[in-house]
């Protein structure tokens, strides 16, 4: 029986061990290194597929559970398992990583083995974050994730990489240590580090609010939410393309995942009483950061700001449910479900679209070594295939119906209407602002006359780039046209979560 295999452990440790092997193989045979890395990443993706196909979407219980004692004195366990919330994110991780490896194929000339190894190790660690059911195990993976990313930005990044990577590290570290204290505090309340036991833990409102704030510091930095988002544009701009992709596609999701796994179920009353805070922060992110994106001259920075705005939708969807619930008086109303599911769909879809957008910029950057919009113009004349892809992804980024970008945003806006017209109104402005900044960038970069001699000599995408962008385009299209399987997978878990959240712990 395939479900009896330690699939989660395999998905975590295969890339980590593979990464160490790649690291040990050194740079003497760069091609062998690249192929090894790709094979490891592909195998990891294959090994994660049983999670999707063997998943029982009828239950909210944890599946593929693995449990062993790790540090018995503190009841810390090696405790893994997935539900409908974490499983799609794991698949997203294992899906994106091979693409990142391919995208860095011959582009990375400086120490390719270390580059590939860093991404593989990070893949394993990120899967670990999504599958941990022990709070300390979660924290270990959560922090360990910083190390490879720190190195990736610092070694293969742009000119200002040192500033960006130290800022990235310290911001995230700052956010997470307070979560650590909150976890320890709950350990003494519940007697174990089991996250599911934390869910049932009775806490007073004051305790809940303090714990909620500690979690908020960790997750808000990661998401990132306004006003702690400032590390993201720096990190994105300086990171190599692959680093940006992983950051935007997966790392940001870890913050959103944290809200669903920790904040909402552990501190439902605090989440309820502080929902106005999160909702305002989210709306500021959606509207204000949208305008900030409009003003950017640097393509990567523009996409980074657009990521923040899109992630604002995710947190909005998660916390709007409290308003819906208090108005409708029940926890499982479809409006509430719509909000959280919309947020989740938005996370997965943003994983594809932002990855694709950063890869598009990477394609241009590899040829021109510039990310400035002003340096481009008329690219469509020399790179027609590429232009088609980029326009498609830009449309998806702007939320065009038929693409995955539309589904999540639409669900969240619908849910917001149940809560309050003005929330929905503000959220819906993103359809205009988002279209404005994305399409304006497209217009300036792709269309018009050929801007300069450099653009005139551009060559269209090679097959490697075509594979990467093509795969993502299919994913964006499928999710946009037929999101039902994804929603079905998470339905039971999210309904259960909302049922749990609607019952006050006081």
């Amino acid at each position: 029986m395939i479900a009896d295999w330690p699939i989660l452990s395999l998905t975590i440790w295969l890339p980590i061990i593979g990464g160490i092997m790649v690291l040990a193989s050194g740079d003497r045979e760069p091609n062998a290194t690249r192929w090894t890395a790709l094979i490891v990443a592909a195998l990891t993706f294959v090994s994660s597929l049983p999670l999707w196909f063997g998943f029982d979407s009828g239950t909210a219980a944890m599946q593929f559970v693995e449990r062993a004692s790790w540090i018995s004195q503190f009841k810390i366990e090696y405790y893994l398992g997935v539900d409908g919330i974490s499983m799609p994110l794991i698949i997203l991780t294992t899906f994106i990583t091979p693409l990142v490896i391919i995208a860095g194929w011959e582009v990375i000339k400086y120490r390719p083995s270390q580059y590939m190894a860093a991404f593989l190790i990070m893949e394993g660690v990120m899967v670990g974050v999504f599958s941990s059911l022990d709070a300390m195990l979660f924290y270990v993976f959560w922090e360990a994730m910083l190390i490879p990313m720190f190195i990736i930005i610092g070694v293969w990044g742009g000119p200002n990489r040192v500033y960006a990577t130290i800022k990235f590290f310290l911001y995230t570290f700052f956010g997470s240590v307070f979560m650590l204290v909150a976890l320890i505090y709950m350990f003494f309340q519940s007697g174990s580090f089991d996250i599911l036991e934390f869910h049932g833990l009775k806490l007073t409102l004051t305790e809940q609010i303090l714990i909620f704030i500690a979690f908020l510091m960790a997750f808000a930095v990661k998401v990132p939410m306004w006003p702690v988002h400032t590390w993201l544009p720096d990190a994105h701009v300086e990171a190599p393309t692959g680093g940006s992709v992983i950051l935007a596609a997966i790392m940001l999701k870890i913050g959103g995942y944290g809200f669903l796994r920790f904040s909402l179920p552990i501190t439902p009353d605090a989440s309820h009483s502080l929902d106005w805070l999160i909702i305002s922060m989210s709306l500021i992110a959606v509207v204000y950061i949208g305008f900030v994106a409009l003003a950017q001259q640097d393509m990567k920075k523009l996409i980074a700001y657009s990521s923040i705005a899109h992630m604002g939708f995710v947190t909005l969807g998660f916390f709007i449910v409290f308003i819906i619930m208090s108005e409708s008086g029940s926890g499982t109303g479809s409006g509430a479900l719509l909000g959280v599911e919309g947020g989740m769909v938005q996370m997965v879809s943003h994983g594809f679209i932002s990855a694709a957008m950063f890869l598009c910029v990477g394609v241009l950057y590899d040829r021109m070594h510039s990310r400035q919009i002003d340096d481009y113009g008329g690219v469509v004349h020399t790179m027609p295939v590429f232009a088609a892809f980029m326009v498609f992804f830009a449309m998806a980024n702007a939320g065009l119906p038929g693409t995955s970008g539309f589904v999540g945003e639409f669900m969240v806006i619908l849910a917001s209407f149940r809560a309050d017209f003005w929330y929905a109104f503000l959220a819906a402005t993103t359809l205009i602002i988002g279209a404005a900044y994305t399409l304006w960038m497209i217009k300036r970069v792709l269309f018009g006359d050929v801007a300069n001699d450099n653009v005139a000599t551009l060559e269209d995408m090679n097959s490697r780039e075509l594979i990467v962008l093509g795969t993502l385009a299919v994913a964006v299209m499928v999710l946009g046209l037929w999101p039902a399987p994804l929603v079905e997978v998470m339905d039971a878990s999210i309904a259960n979560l909302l049922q749990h959240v609607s019952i006050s712990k006081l």
Partner: protein
Amino acid sequence: MHFDSSILIPVLPEIFVLTLACIVLVVDLFLKDEQRIITYGITQIGLVFAAVIALAVAQPDTQVVFDGSYVRDAMSDVLKVAIYLVSFVAFLYAKDYLKDRGMFKGEFYTLGLFAVLGMSIMVSANSFLVIYLGLELLALSLYALVAFNRDSKQGAEAAMKYFVLGALASGMLLYGISMIYGATGTIRFDELSTALASPDLNNMVLVFGLVFVVVGLAFKFGAVPFHMWVPDVYHGAPTAVTLFISSATKIAAFALAVRLLKDGLGELQMPGGWEGWQGMLIILAILSMGVGNLIAVAQTNIKRMLAYSTISHVGFILLGILAGTQEGYTAAMFYTLVYAIMSLGGFGMVIAMSRRGFEAERLDDYKGLSHRSPWFAAMMLLLMFSMAGVPPTVGFFAKLFVLDAVVSVDLTWVALVGVFFSIIGAFYYIRIIKLMYFDKPLDDSPLTAGLDTRIVLSLNGLSVLALGMFPAGLLSICTAAFGG
């Protein structure tokens, strides 16, 4: 009077180390300079044997010998083995350094072994007198070791500072001890805790005594505001000696604290809300973490930076002790042992980077290390992340267990202060990583460290990761040491 020789069994490790020190002293007299490796060999083999003997005499129950002034218990077993092994590694790193600088002399090992003996005695002391004897034996050996490079002005200055301040601290400690003796009429720890339980004591004198004892202790630990000697001594002493001071003696300082505060003054009730010595330790711990981490940021010399980082780690060790629970002592002990390992590795790297006529003391000397030696850069990376407390390295678990202990006694705010300062600490540790990985090297000469140093340094770096993956083993040793 009948003499029962079986009482000597618990003190066999000390007897052995004392004999070893004397043998080294005598043998060395008959050796020529080029044969000095024999002295080194005897010392190292002896230290391994000492560890084996300490393990052999270890047993679960506590033995108190010499009229109650000496104790062998689970804690002393663990700490002695740790001290011998840490000293072994420290001497191993030191060998090439001493050779290259004309300091490869027998006296280093004699003094070193006497320091080890002093630490052993501190670990096993069961009365104020014995603990003071051990402390002074350690301190006097260290004063001489700091000035071991007799042509170095910096070394002489550091030794002088260390001596004056150390003597002052010893004086404080002795003064405090005399007051406690005056109030209770005993210097034995076990009798002391019974005496303290009786209600008709002169609390005023005891409190004064306690304050002086804690001050003396803080001096020895290098806790703020009694830390002024630490950076100067770490900087001025030969790196081989700094390595020894920063690793092995911290274990002894931990033993000193536990013996004095837990075994000796654990029962002391204080007027005014604070429980016993906890209040004082909270202040010391918070100041140490704050000042240590903040000032370390401004350092350009790695030895000084590591000195301030030591101060901040001492703050964390004190956090564990001040919890005053079984878990607290266990966590503090875990932290101390882990710190000793990390500090060995950190200063070991400084030694491995240096060569004849070149001391890799400036932070800039670490620029581009990943180009010059990717492997050792990776080891240093592990050590630095461990010191910063980033999982999956063991430094994280050391901090986690201490924070656990602090939160368990309802001092969550102290834990918050601790993690806040550890964020500041993270900055200067990752700055080293930045220099090693993101900057271009200033000189391209390869590392000249010998094979033994390379192997042990690699093991040292990897152990930080391995212990981080599987911290349960070391933790259960520490738990057992406190009868858990």
